[in-house]
């Protein structure tokens, strides 16, 4: 192709940054900046403002450090979204092929298998073995499982517990089964707008095919994607904590067992900071008989990100001296809790890793809220 005909697909949209006054509130709140000196969102914005071309994204390995937790976005006094700019710069890198090998594997897997984990499509429903789960064709509430809990053996307990609770609560739900594809939340945030678009189309097509009245999701990441990145979707979307809280409030579910541990809730960024779902998970935990609920000092809007978002499940931060999940686990140890409860597959994995790294297995566990519920629901 002659050079003058070549036109870039991604434009950065510098004008979105014009209101920035370089106050530093973005970097000041950035969890990644805590562990990685070279990652400075404020400075990235300034560089983008100082330059002209999209090539400003090149040779910045640290752009892959962002975990898309949204802290900068929620704090900016001028309404600028620094996170979105970082993710846009990633799109430039994806378009220009400047992609770390591990990210490339994820994007390839998405393209071929519609899940980021390189797993065979036909193993997506393995987690249902021995359970009675309807297909959505025969139900009205879609339980959208998400790739990670469907494929990861450790996490499969979560959708299994959700199925049991929904059955007990009389929810007329079903799953898409082998038809389910990735929501694309992480793919979009890795900068691959093209693969994301394909996933969105496929999902919307799936959702149209069945008379779905409501979608309930396992992962806050899917929740966020459906709420914000699917403008055409007009079905109500709920995170499972919202649904379970509703079942408990309506008296359709009741806890009978006891869970006598000291528990703190770790807010997943895509549930809390991005979507202001703070109360439902806490209400559920506080209803569990015997559970001694405490709060992290950094909770709710000030919660510390676990670094599992924005595609960071598949790639380590460049230049980092530590992981924020390790900091979080140390906070839990200082707080004297026995269980960190959370409600996100990625938080569960990163925190569990951090517990192993810190050799705290004897003193501390991380559990999904559903795993606790499973123990007290008989």
């Amino acid at each position: 192709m002659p050079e003058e005909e070549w036109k870039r697909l991604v434009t950065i949209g510098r004008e979105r940054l014009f209101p920035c006054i370089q106050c530093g509130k973005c970097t000041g709140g950035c969890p990644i900046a805590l562990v990685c000196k070279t990652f400075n969102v404020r400075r990235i914005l300034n560089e983008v403002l100082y330059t002209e071309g999209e090539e400003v994204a090149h040779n910045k390995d640290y752009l892959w450090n962002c975990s898309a937790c949204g802290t900068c976005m929620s704090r900016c006094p001028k309404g600028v979204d620094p996170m979105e700019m970082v993710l846009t710069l990633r799109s430039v890198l994806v378009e220009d092929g400047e992609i770390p090998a591990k990210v490339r594997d994820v994007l390839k897997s998405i393209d071929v298998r519609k899940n980021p984990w390189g797993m065979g499509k036909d193993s997506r429903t393995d987690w249902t073995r021995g359970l009675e789960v309807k297909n959505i064709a025969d139900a009205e509430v879609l339980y959208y499982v998400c790739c990670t809990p469907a494929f990861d053996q450790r996490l499969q307990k979560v959708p299994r517990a959700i199925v049991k609770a929904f059955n007990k609560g009389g929810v007329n739900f079903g799953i898409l089964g082998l038809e389910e594809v990735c929501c694309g939340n992480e793919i979009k945030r890795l900068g691959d707008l093209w693969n994301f678009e394909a996933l969105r189309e496929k999902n919307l097509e799936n959702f149209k095919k069945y008379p779905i009245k409501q979608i309930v999701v396992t992962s806050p990441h899917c929740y966020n994607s459906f709420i914000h990145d699917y403008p055409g979707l007009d079905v109500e979307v709920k995170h499972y904590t919202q649904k379970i809280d509703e079942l408990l409030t309506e008296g359709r579910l009741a806890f009978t067992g006891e869970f006598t541990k000291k528990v703190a809730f770790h807010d997943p960024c895509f549930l809390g900071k991005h979507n202001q779902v703070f109360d439902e998970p806490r209400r559920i935990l506080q209803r569990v008989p015997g559970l001694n609920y405490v709060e992290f000092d950094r909770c709710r809007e000030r919660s510390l990100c676990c670094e599992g978002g924005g595609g960071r499940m598949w790639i380590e931060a460049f230049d980092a001296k530590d992981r924020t999940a390790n900091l979080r686990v140390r906070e839990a140890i200082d707080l004297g809790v026995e269980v960190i409860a959370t409600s996100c597959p990625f938080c569960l994995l990163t925190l569990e890793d951090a517990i192993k790294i810190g050799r705290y297995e004897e003193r501390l566990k991380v559990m999904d809220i559903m795993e606790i519920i499973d123990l007290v629901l008989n």
Partner: protein
Amino acid sequence: MKLGVYICHCGVNIKANVNVAKLTKFAEQLPRVRVARDYLYMCSEPGQQLIKKDIEEHGLDRVVVAACSPRMHEITFRKALRSAGLNPHCLEIANIREQCSWVHEDRMKATQKAQKLLAAAVSKAALLEPLEEKEVEVTPAALVVGGGIAGIQAALDIADTGYKVYLVEKEPSIGGHMIQLDKTFPTLDCSACILTPKMADVGNHPNIELFSYSEVVAVKGFVGNFEVTIKKKPRYIDETKCNACGQCAQYCSIEVPDSFNLNLSKRKCIYIPFPQSVPACYVIDPDHCRYLLTRDCTQCLEVCKQGTNAIDFTQKEELVEVKVGTIVIATGYDLFDVTTKPEYGYHLYDNVITGLEFERLSNASGPTTGEIIINGKKPKDVVFIQCVGSRDKTVGNEYCSRVCCMYTAKQAHLVREKLPQATITVFYMDVRAFGKGFEEFYDRVKQEGVKYRRGNPSEVYRRGDRLVVKAEDTLQGELVEVEADLVVLASGIIPNKQTAQIASLLKLSQSPDRFLLEAHPKLRPVDSASDGIFLAGCCQGPKDIPDSVAQASAAAAKSLIPLSTGKVIIQALTSFVQESDCRGCGFCVEACPFDAIELREVKRGRRVLEVASVNEVLCKGCGVCASVCLSGAIQQKSFADRQILSMVAALGEEYA
């Protein structure tokens, strides 16, 4: 009918984009035009002389000026007409600047549009009728709403001129926020020391009638003749008898948070807000008093009976009507609610406080008698965070609060003075030290070893028993975690929460920042858009004390103009009713925002009908009535249907 047309170049403002020579030639051939001229600045003295001379020499009876917006110079040209013996309402202005030369780039098209605008104005001018302006008497008294420093100053200035002032304050004492402050920047005067003499003057002034613990609930009328209803809340204490001996409070057993000290300490249920309160009279808190709630305690009553016997539980809410000629609004500000910024943990940590709380903490009459003590300890590390709730789009406050940079500098100085060993860090975005003596004061504070770090902190959290302020030091480009045992949030200021209520009561406008809107941002900064109502202090926008005082004196001077001339001219552009066409449907009565229209019974033959009737003194000439009238019976003078339709017709023509 003889018309004169006057086309202004406005220097190059109009001439650069409109062919003025062509426009003048065009005007000459319009119907009834006797003379058409163009001139460099029509508003100048020689420009006006041109018009006056032509009126006299050619016997013109209607004048069209093609120039800037009528908002700018309509009054100028009306005066010129009057001085030449012509009725000032025989003037029509074609706006060929704001609505033409300034907004179009193509000179030819702009000239064509100017021709249309001019032709429309000429056709309307021929239909204009001379109008008479009316004069009404002015009630020689003023109302001042709000008893903070701005209201106090305005009230004193008006009263000192010899006019009666009604000063209404919603709290039990005047003093506003200024009486809560410790020292004032940059001079470090004691705030109460400089304010209390003025408060006492208000209390003693023969011309000031103070309504404390009261609110304005209704305002009727217009400039010169406002009728105001004031609601006096019951104090349950007779102001004329109470000598503020304080015996009652000693016997009262109910303790409640002291709002004067921002709930940092307790007060009794029967209380005086602070020792220098004006009026020096106790008040009973009706939400907590056991007698008022359950009638099971009469401790205060019994002790007061042995003294002045001032307590009176039979007091009821009272409505008082007063008549005034002018009104000064000085309703002040509220502090930004810092809990809407959860990242700073104000709602969680006792040692995160607001700027105003610091003032009470530092004040000798405050909860700690002026010692900086928090949680029983003197802090070693103090961090100030600026711009909390200011310059912040996400909470709807895009503006700078204008006082926080300097009050923070002052508070940093006070910490240095009281805790010489403490480390003091101020996190700022930009230091705005713009006033007289401000930059010098900022220098002095830095000289005293206060660390200024550029960066807007992102969060505050706990580590052990201390707080951590996390920020990027943007000059160093590095993330910092500064430990502190006292964090002061420089909370910005927002309009008093009753501003919207006051605005709707007095039909005032609010600017997008929710403060009250002045009539002109440059040239009428203390006038509201409503005649006879003036703005003083922070109700109009954030201000420090000297600016509030200056604006209050300005508002007082402005409000004295009608009072001292004794007369106001009621504008002639009112609506009027063609009774024979009126169906008495009352749509206009409902639509009128000024309650200027009512239905009146008239006899028509043997029948009695209702027709609309306009009170010309109340009518502001907004034209809403004419737009809702189905039969065209109600019309606005100089904007009647036939006048406007003739303009529309002229605009529709094509001109060479």
